[in-house]
């Protein structure tokens, strides 16, 4: 909790631990590390009850999660082209 109250060294507006670029990079680095570790973990166990062959392929849910996420976001961008209206659309 103390981190959250830290003053920015410049003495300006409060900048929290999460807002310092070096910490953001640290967090992203940590995430990358975890991702790599999780994919590598696939080498050390086997699925005892696979229902579909694709389940047992190496790192399936990893790349699937990544791709699904990207596709959803891009579908969102596409949808925005169609359905976006000004904020007061229904009030006019």
């Amino acid at each position, binding site marked *: 909790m103390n981190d959250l109250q830290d003053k920015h060294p410049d003495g300006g507006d409060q900048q929290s631990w999460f807002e310092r670029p070096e910490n953001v990079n640290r967090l992203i680095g940590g995430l990358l590390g975890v991702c790599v570790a999780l994919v590598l973990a696939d080498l050390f166990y086997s699925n*005892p009850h696979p229902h579909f062959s694709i389940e047992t392929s190496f790192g399936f849910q990893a790349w699937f999660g990544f*791709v699904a996420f990207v596709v959803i976001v891009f579908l969102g961008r596409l949808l925005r082209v169609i359905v*976006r209206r000004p904020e*007061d659309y*229904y009030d006019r």
Partner: protein
Amino acid sequence: MIANLPPGLLMIVGAALIPCLSRRAQSSAVLLLCLASFGLFLLLPEGENWRFTWLGVELTLVRIDTLSRIFGIVFHLAVILSSIYALHVRDTRQHTSALVYAGAAIGACCAKDLLTLFVYWELTAISSVFLVWASDSERSFRSGMRYLIIQVSSGVLLLSGAIVHLLQSGNVQFESFVVAGQPLSLAGMLILLAVGIKCAFPLLHNWLQDAYPEATPTGTVVLSAFTTKLAVYALIRGFSGYDLLVPIGCIMTLFPIVFAVIENDLRRVLAYSLNNQLGFMVVGVGIGTELAINGAVAHAFCHIIYKSLLFMSMGAVLYRVGTTKATELGGLHKSMPWTTIFCLIGAGAISGFPLLSGFVSKSMILTAAAEEHHFLVWIVLLIASAGVMEHSGIKIPFFAFFAHDSGKRVPEAPWNMLTAMAIAALFCIGLGVAYPLLYRMLPFEVDYHPFTVTHVVTQLQLLTFALLAFVALVKSGLYPDEVRSTNLDTDWFYRRLAPAVVNGLRMTYRTVNDTFRSDVITIVDGAMKQTKATFNDKGLFGGTWSTSVMTFLATVLLAVCLILYYL
């Protein structure tokens, strides 16, 4: 006597007394009533009660079995949490309507016949709309009106279904409408449609995203728990194993996540997310195996709590900042650290991180789909899981509490809001860790173990790589910016198209009227005058003719006949 009261009745009757109390005492009285009702509910034995005959129809007000028990319990938990959350509220309307609403939902899930269900069903609609109207704005009033019309229509369909069922089978007991190898009966179809409206089936869904974000900060928390989950209960009771529910549920899990990506109002994002979560449950009900039904029930249980938690955290933001629009938020973790932590726990639970509640419930539905070899369904649910991570796991906490600093410095949420969020967060963790307690309450015996190496690793892979994709998209600038906008949904049809069509017809009528009215009147007037002139006592037909003329005409007629005869 009081111990055997129908569940929920204490809250409904007690709500009538709330306005008699002082404003300060009201919120505590609500909490006490909810706790008392919960205590009584736990003491109720299994079985049927309050049976009587009315107009020749046998009604049974109370049926307590494993299914109604678990829904009753989680409904009570939800209303207790929301009344702690609303302890600071000094608004008689909201307290009264929340109590009646929750009581009606609890009564509904314990009703054994369709007529009792109908009464409670409509009561939830009528009471809950006041939570929307309590925002006291033109916008919320209109939204509430639309909500009320749709909800009451659902009730009318339910009543029609009940009457048809009574005529077809001679009773109104609420049992399964699904008969293997046969299409649904007419009664079944009507009731499925009624339930489908409340369950926010695709194309019937938009009342949810329309009305919930317009309610008060505390009102939305109450709303999020009951109506839709009552519908899930009704689906399980009446339509378990109905195949069509599987594709319906799949569509429900998918389309809201795309809308959620571009929605700016974070409470509306949560409403889309709620719709997506209902999809998981509907798929479970459609698959209909023991594991799938258990999964649907468990997911409804966990979902009510983490969804309440998420709505509570956004309600706290709305209460302090005055808006939940992502464009105006950001950096709130500095001023609302506890709310941030609780929101993150809710976000983790809905995304299904191990040791949190979503992990032990959602996976039951996925496994059930896999065990039935529904490959496509399983893939859709995986995509939807990544989608949940997107809108609820990342978007909600990121844009409200982190992202770019909005510069807003507000006090932390009031103590009672924090307490309610803390309890909900504890439940999210508790259900994720002590899941056997949840499994024991499910309708069927559970032979499912969520914490296998495969499940933990694959689930974490899905979630962390989704997170990685988010980081990559944000860093590369491909993630869509939050913009102030209204996104069209099916409400466009009745808010824009239908009025436009009616207006068009009115304009056409007016044009025709303006152009031709005088001409038509002249013609009709002329014809009238002519007719009058012809038929009055001096006219050709109306006047009396002299005898000699008549004799002459008759002679001519006879002569013509004679000539014709000889020709």
